[in-house]
């Protein structure tokens, strides 16, 4: 049974005022204890959060509120600095599609690698390869190194592959940003189907009008903390209220 459970989870980013730490600076610091305490930015501070199978959850909040950080904690990309994270179920992260390519390798090779990394076994990959290739509509460009792709083409490749998995837990981070009009339309339909199949969906978005269609529960984050967690319409309402009063 898919399930996500967080307790007292904290993620801090160290913002060094100096350039990236070197061996030399560490040795120096060892001999001469530092005067400056490294600046910490608390990216996430969640007291408790539990998501059960069947739930569809929206994440809202201003830029830098911690939405992406929370998603990355759930995806086991960011190990929290303290606290407990339990994620049961196969996770499919759909974050950004601009990185994670082997530039010199062909489109086909990149599809295979990404699919394997996302947890498909080799047999599954071969079975789904044609379907993925068709969805990208890249045709013979798949034989070409990804280095020669435009950003839209890379997006197609990564999106088609990532959405071909059968995830129990789907983590989305405002992905529909690029691609031409026809692709966006097809991508939306594919995404809807994927969300149907997944047991848990967590969806970070700024499109407040879209969220109610997908999510019955929404979490509002600010400065890494949960401000409000409840039925989507209520939370969105409160959020809009606060944005309006701030402006």
């Amino acid at each position, binding site marked *: 049974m898919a399930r996500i459970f967080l307790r007292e989870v904290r993620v801090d980013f160290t913002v060094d005022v100096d350039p990236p730490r070197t061996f030399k600076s560490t040795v120096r610091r060892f001999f001469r204890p530092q005067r400056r305490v490294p600046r910490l930015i608390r990216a996430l501070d969640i007291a408790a959060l539990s998501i059960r199978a069947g739930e569809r959850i929206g994440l809202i909040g201003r830029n830098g509120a911690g939405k992406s950080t929370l998603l990355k904690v759930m995806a086991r990309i960011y190990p929290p600095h303290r606290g407990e994270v339990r994620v049961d179920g196969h996770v499919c992260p759909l974050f950004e599609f601009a990185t994670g390519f*082997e530039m010199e390798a062909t489109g086909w090779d990149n599809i295979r690698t990404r699919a394997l990394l996302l947890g498909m076994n080799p047999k599954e990959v071969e079975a789904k390869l044609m379907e993925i290739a068709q969805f990208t509509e890249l045709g013979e460009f798949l034989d070409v190194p990804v280095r020669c792709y435009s950003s839209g083409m890379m997006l197609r490749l990564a999106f088609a592959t990532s959405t071909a998995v059968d995830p129990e837990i789907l983590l989305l981070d405002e992905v529909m940003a690029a691609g031409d009009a026809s692709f966006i339309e097809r991508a939306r339909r594919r995404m809807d189907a994927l969300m149907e199949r997944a047991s848990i969906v967590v969806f970070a978005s700024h499109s407040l009008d879209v969220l109610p269609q997908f999510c019955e529960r929404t979490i509002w984050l600010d400065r890494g903390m949960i401000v409000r967690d409840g039925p989507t319409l209520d939370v969105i309402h409160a959020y809009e209220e606060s944005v309006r009063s701030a402006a």
Partner: protein
Amino acid sequence: MSGEIVRALQLWPVWLRLGIQDVRLRFRRSLLGIAWVFLNLTISLLTIGFIYSSLLGQDLKKFLPFLTIGLVVWSYLTAAVVEGGMAFIAAEGYIRQIGVPLFVYLFRSFVSVSLFMLLNLITYFPVAYFSGLTLHYGMLWAVPGLLLMASVVLLFITIFAYLHTRFRDAIPFASALLQVVFYVTPVIWPPEALRQQGLHWVIDYNPFYHLLEVIRQPLLQAEPASTLSYLMVALLIGGLMVIAASCVWRYHQRIVYFL
């Protein structure tokens, strides 16, 4: 932690694929492609072989097989530091997007450098043929030697991947150190040359000499290396394991934040 290692091992199709791909892509868009592996080594062999065999009064036919193994094994070790140290940094795009255990990227690097070493090792066979060495069952003692070497390489990759992601000085620092070790280790000169000078301790206490011996001795003499060599290599592996474990323990949770 052990759970993560098991999960990483189960993902063998990915790291095997990525490792092989790394070797394939290395010579993409070059005219001679994979031939460069052999060309590179052959050029070094001929140059060093000719100069050093005259310098040290060695018979070229006897010296070349010795030199070949030395160069192949040494570049394997160097690759472990220089390429292995980049294992996480090179995989940043994947690490930030997909939450698979980090060990996957260490294994990928291991596959890549090991495969490259095996390709290099092929050169040994024509050299051995030229030198009139005959195949013998005793040469199979090189297999455990290569496995020991591979464990050292895997540990080196682990240590430097973690260290270098944390301190970007690790690779340059280690490269400089390796260069020094290269000079005091009988890679391109025979150990007897130093023994005759009464400097045998430089060799005897050098674990890298013994690491070379467990591969070189079987291939050249068709017999296992000395017990001392195996012992020293075991000690080296033990020491590296402690260092690798403490690197993993100290930095594993923080790697993604260092990228």
